[in-house]
């Protein structure tokens, strides 16, 4: 990767690229993780709501709990980028 011919601009550009990659990975992986976590909770929540409509509020609450993960990912990526 690194050889003697690299200029400062090239190194900076490469760093920017790495940052962008890191930000993308942060959002992407946390998004997948959130999706996987919400998969189980969500299906159980829909089932519970179908049985008893009053469960809706609580079901929604449980379903969105793992969303924190992707929000953290987004925060990290924004901090990386800006």
């Amino acid at each position, binding site marked *: 990767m690194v050889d003697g011919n690299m200029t400062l601009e090239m190194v900076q550009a490469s760093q920017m690229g790495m940052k962008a990659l890191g930000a993308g990975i942060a959002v992407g992986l946390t998004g997948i993780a959130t999706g996987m976590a919400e998969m189980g909770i969500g299906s159980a929540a829909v089932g519970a709501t179908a049985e008893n409509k009053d469960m809706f*509020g609580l079901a929604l609450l449980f379903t*969105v*709990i793992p*969303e*924190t993960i992707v929000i*953290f990912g987004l*925060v990290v990526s*924004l*901090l990386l980028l*800006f």
Partner: protein
Amino acid sequence: MLTPEQMSRLLIVASRDQMRPVIAELYRFHLFHIEDFVDQGSGDYEGFRIGTPLAGATEASGDLIKVRAMENVLSIHGEDVEPAGKQSPSEFRARIERELPGLESEVETLTGRRSKLETKAKEYEQKIAEIEPFSCIPLDLDLYRGYRNFTVFAGTVTREVSLAVPNETFGTKIKDRHFVVVITPNEHRGEVEKALQGAGFQSVPVPDETGVPQERIDFYTSQIAEAKKEIDEINRNLDAMKRDNTGFLAACEEVLKAEVERTEAPLRFATTNETFVAEGWVPAKSVAEVSGALEKATGGRIFVTEVPVDPEHDAVPVEYNNPRFARPTQMLMDIYSRPTYTEIDPTLMVSIVFPLFFGLILGDVGYGLVLLAMVFLLRRFLKGEEGQQLLTTLRNASISTIFFGLLFSEFLGFELPWKPILFSRHLNIGGEAGAAGPAIPELMIMAIWIGILHITLGRVLGMVNHARQDHGAHRMKAVLANFGWIAVMWGILVAIWSVFAMPYMPDLSKLPAIGAGVPLGVIVGVVLIALGLVLIARDAVLDIVEIPTILSHVLSYARIVAVGLSSVAIAMVINYMAIGLFIGPQLKNISIVGIIIIIAGVLVFIIGHLLNTALGILGGGLHSIRLHYVEFFTKFYKGGGIKYNPFGMKRRFTED
């Protein structure tokens, strides 16, 4: 405000002959939440029995079932019917007695006839399906049976068969199978059977008909058409009846429902041979009015008294008590859970903060206007109280969106002719934005500040709730534990501030260091954290494991910025694609192909922004309400109150 409506418990005792006027009066007031009398285990009520319905209950409920059945057949939904003026009930009862039986028998005859015709049409279709295979065989249907010396085989085989014995065979192809009819003398029956079995023979029954198959099919088809025509005629009649009687039936349902509820009310009272007792709840401000009216209706032959309320153990029904503008938000509260009688009702706070969050997230004049237009359009179609409440909440949210759009200087992702007054959210997409770029750190810190304040407010409310609801030693501990949570959170903040200087946050790093070079702020922070931990642990040691939620809950408010930025990004990408890539280059030298590309660009613009509006409503709405439900309510709110459901109904079609 902030507390549910004050309730009083009323005890009504009177002799049984006063039951009818008392029930009528309570029903008219629509204020009395009946506490149902339960026969078993009611210590104070020894010797009492559940009452029996008043005279006329059976007839009324019978009629109600008939009316509902008719509404079902004519697909009338009472809630969707616009009432055309109110009628007097006595007049209306007479009309029910006069018109209902006739209407009922008419509907019954028509639907009975219709279902008969439908069965008939089905039967004929079945017959056609049976005859169909034989239509390609040049034999009359009566030629298939009645032979003494011949056997007839009819059925399908997978491949063609050639028989070595004398026979007459007709065949045709149906889909991927061959339909064959084989007539053979009885003595060769065995061989033919064998040969056919070898070819996967499946027998098809010969229909019990006479004449040419195609003619029979034509006959049945015409019969079906006739039946269909008649069914259409009946449906037209039913539609006409629906047009003429919608209002009448909806009003009938209302009158009869009221009648049934009134006549069956004694089933919820405690009675003896001569008297009855009704217990229930009335808003405290209406007690005098209700008891006065009851005295008047019975000529004073009644005993009404207020029973002392024990808010801890009585199942007090909860009615919201909010200023007008906060009322629509009650719907959002009911989705989560109604507050209990003793706790703080946060509806007012939600009604203010929810639109603010929504506006901060969406924050775009264009989307706000689209949303506002949508709300006013939907108002015409969406009937029912809940729908209207939802729309009013959305209206407030869209006004807030427009307001923050002006502050963020955003219109469908474009910049308005001024610089953002609040922090800029314009990303550098497609070179559209100015060189400044988004002020991400500032926006983040704003979101964190909102989180800190919102959560602190939640904890303060938690202290108030525990002070109100708990007793004895636990009360003080619980209040202090909530204070402990605040102390830990602010302790962490003070410690961070004294190490790092951050924009828009107090800078404590300049404070003098004491001791071994440790800044003063850090020491204050650590002391606060330690104090907080002790206070939390005193109430419940296990709560200590929840400490990381302080961080995650505060950071969770970053979604206000994050979700908002993603919506801005989508809007800017759409603009760049539609204008920068499709429309812009073509406008320079217009050609036929160019015009098509411009139209495509306009489509991208419209569809993209429609999609982003939908995403914005989902994102803005769900995330704002989630911040309330998960981050705010978990600090103080329990809910689970019983809905105040007063005896009576809001009349729409008839007068009281």
